[in-house]
């Protein structure tokens, strides 16, 4: 096998590449790759963080499946996926296609505003929404104003409503990103495709399903990946709004990691949860990309 590949410019030094890579890779390996390996290692032990650890084998992983608290935390993460990813995608598709069809003045301004939630610190978002969800907060005021008094409650303290309430914050957070993303993708669809569809007698709905939707497959995949990862990683929001309560109804895996490692002194179990969470994120990201790649022409 020839050592020199022909695609590079002539005289290109090869060793130098490693030198350029070194700073980035060193920091990255030391502070991201190595800890990941360590996480796996710690997850095989029972450790309280202070004294010597005892070997636990796969017990911590077994616990992830058997402990109802952990199982439900992963279940809650899936619920959040619906709110962070599915809902914004559906709403975003609708919103973006409406915007794409018509020439709207000041689109850039609207885009800036709709995208704004993405840049605000999650802690600030949590503080704002916690206030809005209070028994005397804006959400209840709004419900009372439209006559839905019976729905008003302390949202974050309600067993059934707390998780959807937190999820809805995620919906609010992600709609902007998804809409802007899809809009950018739709903007690249050639007008001829629409012409062709219209000539075939398609109305706006048909147009959407036949032309728009298939063309933004790539953007949809990106949107799904970003939002699903965001949903699974939720920590800041839960910490600020509910700390996992009421009871355990809003506990999520990343909060369990923090709680177990630094509050309860069950570091091995925490590491196992973290590893499982990371694995799930990988699988989903790769899965979404695979599906998108396979379908794209």
């Amino acid at each position, binding site marked *: 096998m020839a050592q020199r590949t022909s695609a590079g*410019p*002539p005289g*290109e*030094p*090869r060793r130098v*590449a490693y030198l*350029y890579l070194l*700073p*980035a890779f060193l*920091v*990255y390996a030391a*502070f*991201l*790759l190595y800890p*990941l390996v*360590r*996480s796996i*290692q710690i997850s095989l032990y029972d450790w309280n963080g202070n004294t010597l650890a005892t070997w636990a084998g796969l017990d911590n992983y077994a616990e992830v499946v058997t402990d109802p608290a952990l199982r439900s935390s992963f279940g809650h993460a899936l619920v959040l996926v619906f709110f962070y990813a599915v809902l914004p995608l559906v709403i975003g598709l609708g919103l973006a296609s409406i*915007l794409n*069809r*018509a020439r709207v003045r000041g689109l850039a301004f*609207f885009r*800036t*505003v*709709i*995208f*704004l939630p993405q*840049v605000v*610190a999650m*802690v*600030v*978002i949590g*503080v*704002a*929404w*916690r*206030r809005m969800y209070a028994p005397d907060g804006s959400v209840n005021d709004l419900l009372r104003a439209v006559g839905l008094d019976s729905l008003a409650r302390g949202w974050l303290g309600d067993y059934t409503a707390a998780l959807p309430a937190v999820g809805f914050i995620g919906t*609010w957070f992600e*709609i902007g*990103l998804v809409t*802007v993303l899809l809009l950018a993708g739709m903007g690249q669809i050639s007008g001829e495709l629409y012409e062709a569809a219209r000539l075939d007698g398609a109305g706006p709905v048909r147009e959407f399903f036949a032309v728009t939707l298939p063309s933004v497959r790539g*953007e949809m995949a*990106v949107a799904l990946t*970003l939002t699903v*990862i965001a949903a699974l990683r939720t*920590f*800041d929001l839960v910490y*600020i709004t509910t700390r996992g309560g009421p009871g355990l109804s809003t506990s999520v*895996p*990343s909060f369990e*990691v*923090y709680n177990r*490692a630094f509050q309860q002194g069950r*570091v091995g179990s925490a*590491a196992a949860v973290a590893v499982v*969470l*990371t694995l799930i*994120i990988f699988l989903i*990201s790769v899965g979404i990309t695979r599906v998108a*790649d396979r379908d794209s022409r």
Partner: protein
Amino acid sequence: MRVSRAERTANYVILVGFAMFALYPVLTILAAALGPDDTGRATSSVLGLHPGNFSIAWNVGHFSSYLATSVLVSTTVVVVSVVFSILSGFALGTMRFRGSTLLFYAFLVGIMMPSEAIVVPLYYDLRTLGLTDTLWAVVLPQIAQSVAFGTFWMRAYFRTSSRSLVEAARLDGASTRRILWSVLVPLARPAIVTLTVLVFMWTWNEFLIPLVMVTSESLRTAPLGLAFFQGQYTQGFTLLAAGACIVATPVVLVYLFLQRHFIAGMLEGAVRE
């Protein structure tokens, strides 16, 4: 394609509706921060607004210290990450060498890895080294995270940058270093600016890593300051809202001035070439 008047109006209505929806929580905080103190404390008002709340929150909540730390951390992470990413993105994007694909995938892993995966072992290992409760413990992990994305980002850019330019420069006898810094980087300004604002935003807003790595007050970052302020300041909401504004403003300001870069960055962020 003619769009009917009705449809136009409907579009505007929907747009304005969503804009309000997006802005409402932010406006809630702003309004509360500028409103009269809801614990009955008297503050001076200007045209019905009470900007004095901000200075009270600033003092009571020690936000000057937190902001200073956040600025220090964010600046350090941004500068180091961007430089490192340019270097590694350049290598991966323009040079062919053994293991380049493997290394690329290695960096890709880092983009998807949540902080939770590393924060536990990192805390205990850094504690053994005596590095917890120092800025290093906050800065270095975030540099690692930023460099993962940054390498991917700059590599994507450099791959599409003009091959002929590089060839021409090399034929002129320019060293690799010259090629990078004198030829490619000036042209890469938009991509670099985007990377800078994204890393700045992610670092400023980061919560979990500073929460775990640092216990000393003087090293707390702004989001943490806000979180503790929420628990500590139990009367009313006014000062908490003012604090929240203080914490969110820097990134929002940068966003408003450089929104094109923000949006472009996040959109193209994970799109595969």
